[in-house]
């Protein structure tokens, strides 16, 4: 979240789209109700289903799954053409005035630079025009035909009300009503927040859906404001923390990245990432990249990392592929190219798309290690569970280890919630049997590996032999030791630019401003610096007072970065430093420095006269309406159909087959063969979770099993009539990849839609229930889903696929 849970209460309009917070985040959702009751706010839900969130909303609009870019792109078109955007904000705080290269263009659904053979874009033409000093040219009148504003206007001019209605299947009057409500928040004293979740991410165009929402918020001046923002309601208790700590194939902690194979020189690697400002005088905070990187390498390799060996640059694995994401890895596993796999608290057999492929892939491993508090379907993938999982154990040669871990109640540590708060918790009891904390299990395996390399030698042992392991009990590092390490400390005395001693050797760092690129500091995750200072563990703080009545509670836990609660909060004030509106004030200039009810997300002494932009991580200092080189399918979002679409072509580009689906998405040949067509599988399906269950874990809990005991699917009344299905009948839902059986819930809450002249029925499939635990045994939902991902993140398209429903 750019903002935080309690801040939702400050919104005037809440759009729930791509998420169902009343059901998936029920307690956080209380702040939506608080906004409605005490801030006169309205709640709007746009969703394929009339959800439990919709049930308490002021307005609901149905939409075909996977068409959110059309809905929001149309909103951008409407805001621009009707002049209902916050012009002062857009001019000062976005890149609207920057001028783009002449070569840039868009035709037949493709941006310039597309290579149909590789399915990738050359992004050279997606650049600003620069002067001799490397600064982008600007036109503050926003009239230049190639300024970002005019290009954006032109791009979305095709997204008229009629087109949007035809693509989304949403009635025109409903679309217009939602757009009008959003447009009202262009006023400086009104804010709108977007609450989204996996309903936006799990599409082949997921990243661009979120970008479209961010562009809307920039146009309306809702970023950095109380009650504004683009707010990801993350799915798991510490998925934010694992993202922050970079446990993703191409990442390092704190959104640092691994080098690519062709980045052979350390200097080039740093230069590529330590980006200078593109507009004179901007902060462009990533320019300090080397400080974060070197401090990480000192935390990991200690004395072995020195300037002479480029801080162990060659010890970091380099990427030989764009991404070794899970779809890529399971494709290789399926081809027999993977030997071993470790699953720590992760149940891929249930959680990954195309279960039949996952089963075959796991069967080709030599060894599988499952580290989990619970029995999982993955650990038992080799076991025959009858019709729900029909395999022959004798034919599966994978050696499987199952290691019991502690659960949350049996360990100390922190998790990061969606608000970016690091909250410390304590062990309440002992684990069952011989279960151990994950840290002890990982250390146990690692220390044995290290000993084997000491005794036998082997392939490139240096990073293993020299991994910095300063823990008092090496076989079980404590949470306290690890937390102090990711906060960072001084290895030598640290001085500021005036040679004043600012941190003594051995002391914990107060914030990332003290990090150095000369090896004098170590820090395991630069954005967490400040969580465990010389004053102690800041993550245990429990002062819930709210002296400004804004809901910031700065004394509760610790929020990254630097305990800021609302990101980019400089944008809550006008360029001259006064708040856009007293009721929305977060930080302001008091004549000498930035002050307010939150920690300023800005250099404290940057005077308004310096005109530095609030989006200080960007090279322009501004919000990026134009994505330049950061998005694989183009600098502006464009609607492309899901890979399994219920209509024949992309209504925006009916004559351009390359632009039917995301042109930059990666599809493996065998996965493409496993896509179904709407002739055979006519219904658009979407998957989701229920309030009574959490994925596949709560199948093992009696109370949850009692409240939702059995697998069901939801179908609308029109489709049920067509198929002769009554409420409570058992049905079979099939896709090209398999089938599941379930009870049919026939409901008014899913309506048939008119899409591009055709009637489309949508089918709702909860993702819960499997063949273990206390609930009735069932097929796993991901038997049905296709193996294709977003073109940037490779997050699978769980939310839009094709099925056929048959009465059993």
């Amino acid at each position: 979240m750019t903002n935080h849970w309690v801040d939702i209460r400050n919104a005037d309009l809440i759009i729930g789209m791509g998420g169902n917070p009343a059901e998936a985040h029920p307690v956080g959702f209380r702040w939506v109700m608080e906004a409605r009751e005490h801030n006169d706010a309205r709640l709007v839900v746009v969703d394929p289903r009339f959800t439990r969130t919709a049930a308490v909303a002021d307005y609901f609009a149905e939409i075909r799954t996977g068409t959110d870019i059309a809905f929001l792109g149309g909103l951008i078109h409407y805001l621009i053409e009707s002049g209902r955007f916050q012009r002062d904000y857009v001019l000062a705080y976005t890149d609207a005035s920057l001028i783009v290269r002449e070569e840039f263009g868009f035709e037949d659904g493709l941006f310039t630079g597309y290579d149909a053979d590789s399915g990738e874009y050359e992004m050279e033409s997606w650049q600003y025009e620069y002067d001799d000093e490397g600064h982008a040219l600007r036109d503050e009148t926003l009239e230049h035909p190639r300024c970002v504003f005019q290009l954006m206007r032109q791009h979305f001019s095709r997204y008229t009300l009629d087109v949007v209605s035809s693509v989304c299947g949403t009635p025109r009057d409903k679309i217009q009503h939602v757009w009008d409500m959003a447009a009202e928040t262009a006023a400086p004293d009104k804010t709108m927040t977007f609450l989204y979740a996996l309903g936006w991410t799990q599409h082949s165009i997921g990243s661009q859906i979120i970008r479209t929402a961010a562009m809307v918020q920039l146009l309306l001046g809702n970023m950095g404001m109380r009650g504004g923002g683009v707010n990801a309601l993350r799915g798991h208790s510490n998925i934010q923390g694992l993202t922050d700590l970079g446990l993703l194939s191409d990442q390092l902690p704190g959104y640092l990245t691994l080098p690519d194979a062709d980045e052979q020189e350390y200097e080039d690697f740093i230069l590529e990432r330590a980006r200078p400002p593109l507009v004179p005088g901007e902060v462009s905070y990533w320019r300090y990249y080397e400080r974060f990187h070197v401090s990480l390498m000192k935390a990991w390799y200690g004395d072995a990392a020195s300037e002479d060996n480029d801080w162990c640059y060659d010890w970091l694995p380099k990427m030989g592929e764009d991404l070794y994401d899970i779809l890529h890895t399971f494709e290789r596993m399926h081809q027999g190219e993977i030997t071993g796999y470790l699953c720590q608290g992760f149940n891929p057999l249930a959680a990954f798309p195309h279960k039949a492929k996952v089963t075959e892939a796991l069967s080709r491993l030599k060894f599988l290690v499952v580290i989990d508090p619970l029995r999982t379907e993955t650990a038992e993938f080799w076991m025959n569970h009858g019709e729900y999982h029909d395999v022959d154990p004798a034919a599966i040669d994978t050696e499987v280890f199952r290691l019991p871990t502690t659960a949350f109640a049996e360990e100390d540590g922190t998790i990061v919630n969606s608000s970016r708060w690091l909250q410390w918790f304590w062990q309440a009891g002992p684990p069952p049997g011989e279960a151990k904390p994950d840290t002890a299990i990982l250390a146990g395996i690692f220390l044995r590996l290290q000993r084997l390399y000491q005794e036998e030698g082997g392939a490139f042992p240096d990073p293993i032999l020299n991994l910095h392991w300063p823990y008092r009990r090496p076989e079980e590092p404590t949470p306290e030791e690890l937390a102090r390490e990711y906060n960072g400390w001084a290895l030598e005395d640290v001085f500021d630019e005036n040679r004043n001693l600012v941190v003594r050797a051995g002391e914990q760092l107060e914030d990332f401003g003290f990090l150095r690129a000369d090896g004098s500091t170590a820090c395991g995750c630069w954005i967490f610096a400040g969580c465990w200072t010389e004053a102690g563990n800041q993550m245990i703080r429990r002062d819930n007072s709210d002296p400004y009545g804004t809901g910031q509670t700065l004394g509760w836990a610790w929020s990254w970065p630097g305990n800021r609660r609302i990101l980019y909060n400089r944008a809550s004030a006008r360029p001259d430093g006064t708040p856009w509106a007293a009721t929305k004030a977060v930080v302001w200039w008091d004549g000498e420095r930035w002050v307010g009810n939150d920690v300023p997300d800005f250099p404290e002494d940057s005077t308004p006269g310096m005109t530095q932009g609030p989006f200080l991580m960007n090279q322009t200092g501004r919000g990026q309406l134009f994505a330049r080189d950061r998005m694989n399918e183009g600098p502006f979002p464009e609607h492309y159909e899901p890979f399994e679409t219920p209509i024949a072509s992309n209504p925006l580009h009916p004559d351009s087959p390359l632009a039917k689906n995301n042109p930059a998405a990666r599809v493996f040949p065998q996965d493409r063969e496993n896509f179904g067509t709407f002739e055979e599988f006519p219904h658009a399906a979407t998957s989701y979770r229920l309030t009574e269950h959490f994925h596949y874990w709560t199948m093992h809990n009696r109370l949850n099993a009692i409240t939702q005991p059995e697998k069901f699917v939801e179908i609308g009344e029109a489709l049920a009539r067509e198929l002769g299905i009554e409420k409570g009948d058992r049905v079979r839902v099939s896709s090209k990849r398999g089938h599941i059986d379930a009870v049919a819930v026939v409901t008014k809450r899913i309506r048939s839609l008119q899409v591009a002249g055709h009637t489309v029925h949508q089918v709702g499939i909860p993702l819960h229930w499997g063949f273990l635990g206390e609930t009735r045994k069932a097929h796993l939902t991901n038997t049905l889903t296709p193996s294709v991902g977003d073109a940037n993140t490779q997050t699978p398209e769980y939310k839009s696929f094709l099925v056929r429903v048959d009465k059993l």
Partner: protein
Amino acid sequence: MTLRVSRRQFFKLGAAGMATSSMAMMGFAPEPAVASIRHFKLTGAKITRSNCTYCSVGCGVLIYARGDAAINNVDDIYHVEGDPDHPVSRGSLCPKGAGLLDYIRSDSRLRYPQVREAGSNQWQRISWDEAFTRIARHMKDDRDANFVTQDDEGNTVNHWTTTGMLAASASTNETAYCTHKIARGLGMVAFDNQARV
């Protein structure tokens, strides 16, 4: 004549029409109930502050346990409820959070390391030492056989692509940091967590 009235009968009588207060004035009074001297079940429990482990709201929870960690005593978690001081949740829990105790005490919790041998149809209990030793051996054999120092273009890559790992988005930052440090130290790149899906 003494009329003996249990508490249940006393309230039933009241419900039947006559105000119980006037009955008490007439000399009727219920026998002291055994339950009235029973202590509140959480009295004396050790209370530990924690966070719900499911979604990302991060609701505060209070965990109640018996026992004082004495060496021959078994601590036992027997109640979980919302933390009223928490600024987001203010004591609330959803249907998932309200059932946390059932997760902690689920019959499906694993208690011992186990192995399923190739082609076998059953689990077999093993020691931690055997588990660590065998897993480390597997990993080293694969790493030594398949570690890539240079790619086909002669670039130094130093990566290991044939053993992969999924980390857990319900694990702590400390576990995650430790996991990441080890994974990259081994040169692993096929490495993700639930944030990928």
